[in-house]
């Protein structure tokens, strides 16, 4: 896979000595949707601001399409569109004017056809002559997306695109984002919502306290999520697992009373019957069995707790 953004040892310390990013390393691949998932104050917006030149980098390197964002900012920034977390716009400007402005600000020739298509795709065409202030919140966010896409960027940053948006519009937004990906744009979105990350992203990065705690393909995470654990309660203290049970990769619980077995419920053979038979042979007496399922939410909470 081709890397489009390369972040190395990025640190950001704000003027008040607040460490917002602490040694972040991250590669973003061309054409993917990557979700930055993390609680308030995790450093998501700071990360985006550092990549886009809105906030200055304390140390480390960022390359976009191979161009350093500081030394070669012109080339790097041409590839980037950004939709900020806050709805910020010129209230009395017409939609069409502000979108045309953005395109030219990024050094592109005016292109009425492209802008028309863009606005149509975002259902903004019939609102093009309205002033932005008169639009609803969801429509305002679309205007910001149109501005960000006006110069045909390769990479789009969406900082909480669905914050404060109702269910209907959220689904709409998700569709829009998927369509953008299909048209070849690499998308980095931040979110607090796990389902959103799950639904939209190819990869998910969990970020907290300025550190990336985990980054993985969504499918791997879901695999992890769909794992179940069988907890076998016994009435004796277990110090060592019997050799005969070695192939099951069992774990002993902290109180030494339970055995834990991970399995995938989707598989035809879960191995539970054989395991229980083998346990019976070893003479261990069972009191109870119980199953436990972890989901992304739990993984997430677990990760944050351990941090």
């Amino acid at each position: 896979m081709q890397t489009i953004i390369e972040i190395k040892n990025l640190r950001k310390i704000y003027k008040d000595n607040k460490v917002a990013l602490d040694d972040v390393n991250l590669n973003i691949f061309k054409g993917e949707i990557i979700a930055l998932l993390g609680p308030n104050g995790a450093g998501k917006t700071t990360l985006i601001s550092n990549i886009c030149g809105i906030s200055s980098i304390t140390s480390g390197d960022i390359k976009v399409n191979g161009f350093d964002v500081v030394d070669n900012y012109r080339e790097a920034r041409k590839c980037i569109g950004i939709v900020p977390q806050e709805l910020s716009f010129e209230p009395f400007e017409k939609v069409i004017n502000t979108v045309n402005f953005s395109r030219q600000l990024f050094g592109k020739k005016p292109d009425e056809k492209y802008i028309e298509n863009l606005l149509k795709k975002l259902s903004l065409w019939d609102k093009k002559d309205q002033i932005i202030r008169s639009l609803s919140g969801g429509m305002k966010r679309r205007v910001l997306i149109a501005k960000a896409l006006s110069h045909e960027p390769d990479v789009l940053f969406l900082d909480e695109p669905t914050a404060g948006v109702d269910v209907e519009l959220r689904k709409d937004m998700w569709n829009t984002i998927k369509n953008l990906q299909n048209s070849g744009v690499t998308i980095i979105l931040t979110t607090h919502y796990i389902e959103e990350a799950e639904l939209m992203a190819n990869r998910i990065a969990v970020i907290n306290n300025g550190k990336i705690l985990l980054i993985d393909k969504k499918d791997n995470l879901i695999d992890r999520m769909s794992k179940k654990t069988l907890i076998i309660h016994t009435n004796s203290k277990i110090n060592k697992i019997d050799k005969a049970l070695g192939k099951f990769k069992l774990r002993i619980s902290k109180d030494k009373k339970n055995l834990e077995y991970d399995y995938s419920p989707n598989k035809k053979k879960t191995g539970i019957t054989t395991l229980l038979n083998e346990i019976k042979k070893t003479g261990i007496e069972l009191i109870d069995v119980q199953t436990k399922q972890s989901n992304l939410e739990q993984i997430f909470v677990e990760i944050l707790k351990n941090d």
Partner: protein
Amino acid sequence: MINFRSIKAIYIFEMSRTFRTLIQSLVSPILSTVLYFIVFGTAIGNNINFTNEIPYGAFIVPGLVILTISMQSVNNASFGIFFPKFLGTTYEILSAPISYVEIVIGYVGASATKSFCLGLLILMTSTFFVDLDIKFPILMLCMLLLSCVSFSLLGFIIGIVSDNFEQINFVPMIIITPLVFLGGSFYTIDVLPDFWQTITLFNPIFYLVSGFRYSFFGTGEVNIIISIFSISLFILLCIIIIWRIFKTGYKIKT
């Protein structure tokens, strides 16, 4: 390589903001000019005579122009950059592939253009009240342009440094208006006591008014070269401050 398209985008966007409020932005400065002419030029002016050749009404024209365009330039430029800061739209300017020089040219250029046009308009208005016979028209236009640029640069700095609307209004009210009034806009400094004459020599606007007046009448209180030199110095100073601001990201980048 200069990115002209981006500069043009900022410039036109700023100019179109003016056109939305064209009437307001012209009426108030022109009205106050007319008032100055009625009060100073006609009512009081007939009893004043600083220079034997020049009627007082004509004498105050350069000062009046400077008074208006200095205020307007500072206002235009400071609001031009403060508004995006206030609205949060600077994210777009900062993330665009443009250098700070281009940002400054766009904003300051638009601001200076507006006040330059206003300056010309005031000159035209004044011809209704006095006979103006401009001795060095090209020099006059150059001086006018330099003044617009220098005050716009100053306004740009004020807009960036200010955190709220009060601060934006503060500097023009507290510093520029007094400097213009005390800079010989309405009198020649030889009517002042010695002490105040010396103080006036530290007022940059004194040199500006004097140079501007020279382009009208061929006489000024200081040599025209010194005037041009001091304006250039002032512009240079503003440019250095702006360069520092962008270099350190002060008040624009977090």
